């Protein structure tokens, strides 16, 4: 595999630090690849072009991160619900995209019945959405500088990713706390504190942190309601942790047997 990426050295320093146990990435290539036979358009749009060449930027950054974690014997985790076509269907639904709806009506395109229904049935209802304009302008839920209280009233699949990323990270941290108990730990003794390094674009990163820590009653109430509203059929509400396994490959002298293995998959539920 040829990787010519150039991560920021300070990001690399965080990823490779001894405290870092796992890197949480927005997209994990092997996970998308696993879904690729069922989701060619999604994968094509997000990471990989139709002939299999990985796009510069988004694709290469997460490949570079995975490679660094592999070399350093560390895991990669995902908490994002945007990892399969079902998400793309909901996203298209909320943004009022017409093309996927037409695509879903073409029988030659291999889609599951659920995906076909999601893509085709509800498109006429959503042309009101101004979400695309906000995204282009970097405003609203895409603003990189500030978070508006009004966002608490916004429903968008991008927002859904952030709500459930925040929930997933909390559960992941909870599990690391169980694995590395707090007794005899000095708060000043940084080296004993496990670290989860999360890499997301700024508009996502600020809002994920906000959903995790906001003291605003309005935001807390909105987040609780959204966890319920965004809990939709067919999406991955979980944290998934992958580890690079190559012992068998080395023993058999067959490098092609080495792979990223899913070693933890913990479901995250809505409010009940």
């Amino acid at each position: 595999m040829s990787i010519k990426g150039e991560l920021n050295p300070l990001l690399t320093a965080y990823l490779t630090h001894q405290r870092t146990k796992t890197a949480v990435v927005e997209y994990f290539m092997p996970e998308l690849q696993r879904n690729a036979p069922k989701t060619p358009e999604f994968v094509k749009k997000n990471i990989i072009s139709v002939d299999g060449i990985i796009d510069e930027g988004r694709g290469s950054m997460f490949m570079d991160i995975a490679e660094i974690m592999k070399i350093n014997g560390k895991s990669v985790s995902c908490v994002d619900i945007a990892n399969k076509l079902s998400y793309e269907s909901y996203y298209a639904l909320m943004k009022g995209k017409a093309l996927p709806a037409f695509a879903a009506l073409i029988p030659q395109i291999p889609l599951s019945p659920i995906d076909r229904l999601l893509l085709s049935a509800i498109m006429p209802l959503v042309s009101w959405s101004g979400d695309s304009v906000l995204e282009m302008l970097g405003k609203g839920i895409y603003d990189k500088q500030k978070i508006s209280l009004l966002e608490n009233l916004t429903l968008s699949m991008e927002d859904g990713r952030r709500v459930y990323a925040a929930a997933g990270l909390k559960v992941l941290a909870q599990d690391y706390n169980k694995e590395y108990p707090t007794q005899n730990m000095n708060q000043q003794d940084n080296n004993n504190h496990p670290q989860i390094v999360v890499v997301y674009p700024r508009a996502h990163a600020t809002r994920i942190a906000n959903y995790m820590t906001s003291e605003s009653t309005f935001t807390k109430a909105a987040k609780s309601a959204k966890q319920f509203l965004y809990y939709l059929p067919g999406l991955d509400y979980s944290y998934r942790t992958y580890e690079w396994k190559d012992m068998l490959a080395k023993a058999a002298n067959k490098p092609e047997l080495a792979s990223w293995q899913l070693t933890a998959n913990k479901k995250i539920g809505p409010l009940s």
Partner: protein
Amino acid sequence: MIGFSETPVHPAREIKKLSPILLSSSEVLRKAKIDFINQPQLESPKLEAFVNDHVRIVCMGNTDITIIDQEHDEHKGRVESTIDCLPHASAN
């Protein structure tokens, strides 16, 4: 490390045990200086600028959730792999 669970976890129930706390920028910088004290190649002004601009830490119990914002569109990397060259993920 952790294993599998098919039972949905109620996030609110989990969160009650440990409250996430967003660290101040000075505390984030203090942690960075401790973490990278043995890496003089990470020059202090650059480290400070990076931490101030891109790093947030949410502390839960003794675990740090270090959230680093990076725009993938600005990534300088170039990957020439094809799908077939990628490592295959497999679900256990």
